[in-house]
């Protein structure tokens, strides 16, 4: 099972543009924008916060089969990764988690502001209350546009890959 290394955890924690996807019993996919996540180095699991306002289908799908995919992209340079896994828990997010989620959303707003998205936009989004969905990461793929997209994740840095 892959572990989130320091580079990847720092990248995920840097306030990225994040979308999650699930599917129902009839294999119909669903996707929503996520405004906060928690990823720590050395762990095999991570948490995404699904806003209740827009996640009814997502939560229903997760209760049905637990499969989830999350793509996280840096809006400035398009570096992207996709993480796939299976849900291990799904609970109403707590007030303690709210503080970290607020901080993540603020980082995301700053990142998106650099590509022209007004900062106020994300603060108008209904991102709370939310469900904290913790999932076991079973596969990680590079998703940065280019010929390496879709390969198993090794590093976000092309220089490192060439060495």
């Amino acid at each position, binding site marked *: 099972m892959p572990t989130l290394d320091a580079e990847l955890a720092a990248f995920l924690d840097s306030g990225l543009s994040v*979308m*999650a*996807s*699930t*599917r129902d019993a*009839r*294999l*119909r*996919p*669903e*996707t*929503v*924008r996520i405004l906060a996540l928690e990823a720590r180095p050395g762990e095999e699991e991570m948490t995404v916060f699904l*806003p209740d*306002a*827009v996640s009814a289908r997502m939560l229903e799908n997760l209760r049905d*089969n637990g*499969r*989830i*995919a*999350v*793509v996280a*992209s840096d809006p400035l*340079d*398009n570096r*992207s990764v*996709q993480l*796939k896994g299976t849900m291990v828990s799904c609970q109403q997010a707590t007030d303690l988690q709210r503080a970290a989620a607020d901080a993540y959303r603020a980082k995301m707003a700053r990142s998106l502001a650099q590509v022209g*998205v007004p900062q106020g*936009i994300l603060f*108008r*989004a*209904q991102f709370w209350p939310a469900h904290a969905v913790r999932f076991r990461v079973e596969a990680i793929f590079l*998703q940065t*546009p*280019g*010929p390496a*997209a*879709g390969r198993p994740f090794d590093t976000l840095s092309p220089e490192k890959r060439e060495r």
Partner: protein
Amino acid sequence: MIALRDIAPCFEGLVPATMATCSLEGEPNVTKISQVKLVDDRHVALSHQFFNKTQRNVRENPQACVVMHDPGTFEVYRLEVRFDHSETEGPLFEEMAAQIQVIASHTGMLGIFKLRCADVYEVLAVEHVKEFFLPPDPRIDVTRPPAPNLEAMARELHGLQAVSDRVNRTGCLEELLEGVLDELDCRLGIPNSMVLLPTAKGAWSPLPATATGRAGWAPRFRWEKG
């Protein structure tokens, strides 16, 4: 159902769309899409620069979900789509290939992005995800500007294309300046311009202008030799 033409700004490619698919084994996949093109009232086409999981998935399970943002308001629209067919040549493909080059140059992906195929999807449902945003608060939310005039926007885009074509065809700076000013005037209705050149001290200095004397035409600039 919301008509696709009613969400035309979403197809401008200013905010990347996201697409979710699912393999026959039940593994969801999610990816950003560079370009979603409105084909007709019931179809959209998605660009694919690389052969990837998304393409494999829709060929075995044609169901997909696309999320798009209006670039002006950032309102969210969700499309349920079904893969119909793929095009690797013809007018749709050529148009999307040209647009991909524009997107690539804007996003620093020139030389990396090259259209491999345009996948055409039937649109089964369009949903405005109103709940994405909090309800407007009249105390803090300013009144939204009126919806953009799409005809005027199309005229502007064609005007910009004409200016760009003229730039491409010019062979010297004088011709460039004359050509751009002509196109700005005729195509975009901008009769007055000021051209600034950098000075040796790092400041900007306007080029001296002389009027042509032609009624309704722009003041013209004499290209100063030396």
